[in-house]
C-alpha cells in the first residue's frame, strides 16, 4: 500500500511537467504546420474538458476494477449495467417519483440484478476458465441491453436531476477570454471523487470491506478463514451495480440515456490497461489520462489526419503503453517471462 502511495505521489508530481512538455510539443507543431491552431489558453481549456470527460470514463472503469479484483472476472457487461441502471432511473422518474427516491429504487434494482446474476450465471460456472466467464458476461451484456430496452423503450431519454449546466469562465485575466469550463463536468468530477472516497472508506474500515479485500487477495485463503465467497460476490456485483448507476446518471444527464451508453464501456477498457486491472487509483488516473489525451489529440492533431481520432486514439495509447509496462501504472506486477 505504501509503495503504491509513493508511486502515486511521484506520478502526481510529474503531471505538470508532462502537461508543459505536451503543450510545448503541440506549440512547436503548430509553428511548423500553420494549419494547426494553438494557444495556451485553448490548450488548457481542451485539457481540462478532457480531464473532466476522463472522470466519467473512470466511473465506468471503477465498476470493472471492483469485480475484477474480487472475482477475477472481466465483466464486459459493465457498460450495459450502466445503460440498464440509467434506463431504470429514468423510468422511475417518468413515473413521477422524485429523483432521490428513484435513485434509491434503481439502486435496489441493481442489487437484485446482482443477486440474480450471481445465482443464475456465476454459481453454475465456478471453476470454469476465465474466458468462459468472460463470454458469459458478454451474454449478460446482450441480455441486459435487450431487457432494458424492452422494459423501458429505446428512445433517447432525457435525464435531468437538476445538475447545473452553465458554462463558466475562469482566469479571464491570465488568458485571453478565460478558460471555458462546464459546471456540469465539475459536478461530475466532484461526484466521482465522493464515490471513490466512500468506496475507500467502505473497503478500508468496514467488516464487509475487509472481507472483500481478503477475497480479492486470495480466494482459497479467504474461504478457509470462513469468508462466504458467494455472498461476497453478490455484494461486489451490487456495489459495481451502484457504481454503474452513478456513472449512468452522470453520462445520461450529459448525453441523454440511449443505447450508445452501453458502448462507452469499451472506452473504459484502455483506461483499465493504463491503470492496471486491479487498482482503483489506477482506474481514476487512467481515466484522466485517456480523457485528456484523446481530447487533446482530437483537437490539436485531428486536422492532420482528417478527424475522428477519438475512435481509436485511446486504444492505440493503451497498446503503446502495454509494450512498455504490461501491468499498467498501478497494477500488480506478475512476473512471467512470456
Amino acid at each position, binding site marked *: 500500500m505504501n509503495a503504491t502511495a509513493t508511486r502515486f505521489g511521484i506520478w502526481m508530481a510529474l503531471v505538470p511537467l508532462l502537461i508543459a512538455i505536451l503543450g510545448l510539443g503541440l506549440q512547436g507543431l503548430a509553428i511548423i504546420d500553420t494549419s494547426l491552431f494553438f494557444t495556451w489558453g485553448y490548450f488548457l481549456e481542451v485539457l481540462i474538458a478532457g480531464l473532466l470527460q476522463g472522470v466519467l470514463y473512470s466511473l465506468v472503469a471503477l465498476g470493472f476494477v471492483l469485480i475484477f479484483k474480487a472475482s477475477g472476472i472481466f465483466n464486459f457487461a459493465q457498460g450495459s449495467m450502466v445503460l440498464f441502471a440509467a434506463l431504470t432511473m429514468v423510468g422511475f422518474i417518468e413515473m413521477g417519483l422524485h429523483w432521490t427516491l428513484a435513485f434509491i429504487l434503481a439502486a435496489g434494482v441493481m442489487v437484485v440484478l446482482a443477486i440474480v446474476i450471481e445465482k443464475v450465471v456465476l454459481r453454475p460456472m465456478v471453476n470454469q476458465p476465465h474466458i468462459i466467464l468472460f463470454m458469459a458476461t458478454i451474454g449478460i451484456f446482450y441480455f441486459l441491453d435487450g431487457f432494458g430496452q424492452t422494459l423501458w423503450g429505446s428512445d433517447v431519454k432525457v435525464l435531468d436531476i437538476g445538475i447545473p449546466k452553465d458554462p463558466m469562465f475562469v482566469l479571464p485575466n491570465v488568458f485571453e477570454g478565460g478558460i471555458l469550463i462546464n459546471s456540469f463536468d465539475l459536478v461530475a468530477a466532484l461526484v466521482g471523487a465522493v464515490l471513490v472516497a466512500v468506496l475507500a472508506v467502505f473497503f478500508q474500515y468496514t467488516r464487509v470491506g475487509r472481507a472483500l479485500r481478503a477475497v480479492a487477495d486470495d480466494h482459497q485463503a479467504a474461504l478457509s478463514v470462513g469468508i462466504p465467497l458467494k455472498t461476497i460476490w453478490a455484494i461486489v456485483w451490487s456495489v459495481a451495480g451502484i457504481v454503474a448507476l452513478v456513472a449512468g446518471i452522470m453520462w445520461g444527464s450529459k448525453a441523454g440515456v440511449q443505447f450508445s451508453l452501453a458502448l462507452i464501456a469499451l472506452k473504459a477498457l484502455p483506461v483499465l490497461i493504463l491503470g492496471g486491472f486491479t487498482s482503483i487509483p489506477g482506474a481514476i488516473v487512467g481515466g484522466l489520462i485517456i480523457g485528456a489525451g484523446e481530447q487533446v489529440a482530437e483537437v490539436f492533431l485531428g486536422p492532420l489526419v482528417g478527424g475522428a481520432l477519438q475512435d481509436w486514439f485511446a486504444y492505440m495509447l493503451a497498446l503503446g503503453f502495454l*509494450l512498455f509496462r504490461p501491468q499498467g501504472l498501478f497494477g500488480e506486477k506478475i512476473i512471467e517471462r512470456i
Partner: protein
Amino acid sequence: MFYREAGQFKTSYSADQAIFPIRQDRLGLLLLGLVAVFAVPALANNYFLETIFVPFLVFAMAALGLNLLTGYCGQLSLGTGGFMACGAFFSFKLATAFPELHIVVVFLLAGLGTAGVGVLFGLPSLRIKGFYLAVATLAAQFFLVWMFNKFNWWTNYSPSGVISAPPREIIPGFFVTGNEASPAAKYVFLLIFVAVLALIAKNLVRSRTGRSWMAIRDMDIAAEIIGIRPLWAKLSAFAVSSFYIGISGALWAFVYTGSVEALAFQIDRSFQVLFMVIIGGLGSILGSFLGAAFIVLLPILLNNAPAALGIPLKVELISHLEFMIFGALIIFFLIVEPHGLARLWQIGKEKLRLWPFPY
C-alpha cells in the same frame, strides 16, 4: 450399431494417422459433400441460398480463422471485424487495380496482406496475454475500421464510402461476383473454396505448427522449455488466422453482399464471430461450422417465429427480444456445455457407437 469401427483394422501408419480414420466418417462426409454440391443448389430457392447458405459459409470461414487463433493458440482476439475489413478492402483495391488478375488469386493475396497486418497487431501478444491482449486487439479493430472509413483512397474515392464488387468470372462464363452472378454459382464457388481451406486448416492443426500452437495454449512456459519458440508459434497463429479472416472479409464483400462499407465491420462483427467460435467449440474445426450455422440461423428463426406462431409483435420489440434471447442462450450454452456444439457432437458419436445397447 451402424456407427462402429469394429473390424476396420489399420495396417499401416498412414492409415492410422489418416484425417478421418473411421470409414463411416468418410462415407458420411462424402455424402454430405455430394448433397451440398448437387442437392442444395438444385432444391433450395434463391432466398435460402442468399440468406442462409452463403452467409453461413462466409461466417464459417471467419470462425475458422478465429478458432485457429483463440481455440488452438489460446490468444483471445476482438479484432476480427477489423481484419475482415482489411481483407475486403485489400481485395477491392487489388481487383480494381489489376482487372486481369484471377479472382481467387485476388482473394489469396488479400488474405496474405491481412496476414501481414495480423502479425503487426499480434506483436503485443509476445508480452501480454489474456484480457490485456483482447484489449490490444481492440486497437486493431477501431484503428482499421477508422482507416478504411476515413481515407477514401481505399474506396477509389467513392463519395459514399461504399465499395462495390466488380463482376468477375471464376471460369469463363461463370460469374461469381457482381450483379450477373447467380446465387447458386456463388454458393458452389464458396462451398468449394471454403471446403479446401478448411481441409488445409484441419491438416495444419494436426501438423507440427498446430501442435506447437496447442502447446503454447495449454502452458506457454512448459512449451518454451520443450523447445517451442513462443515468438514463432504466436506470430504464425496470428498470421494464419488473419489470412483466413481476411479471405472471409473479401468473400463477404465480393460474394455475399456485393457492396460494403467499412462500418459493416464494426465491433459487433468481432463479437458475432467470437460467439460462433465459443458456441461451436473452442479448438475444433467442425465447431467453427456448427457455430456459424447456429449464429446465422438463430436471428432468422427469432425473426420469423412470432409471425409463424401468430403473435403480432412490433419490429422494434422483436429486435430487443432477439438481443435478450441471444444473450440468454449464450449463457445457457456456456452453463450446459462450455465446450460447445462440437463437444455435443462428440458425445452424440459416443452414444451412437453403443446404440442400441446400453454399453
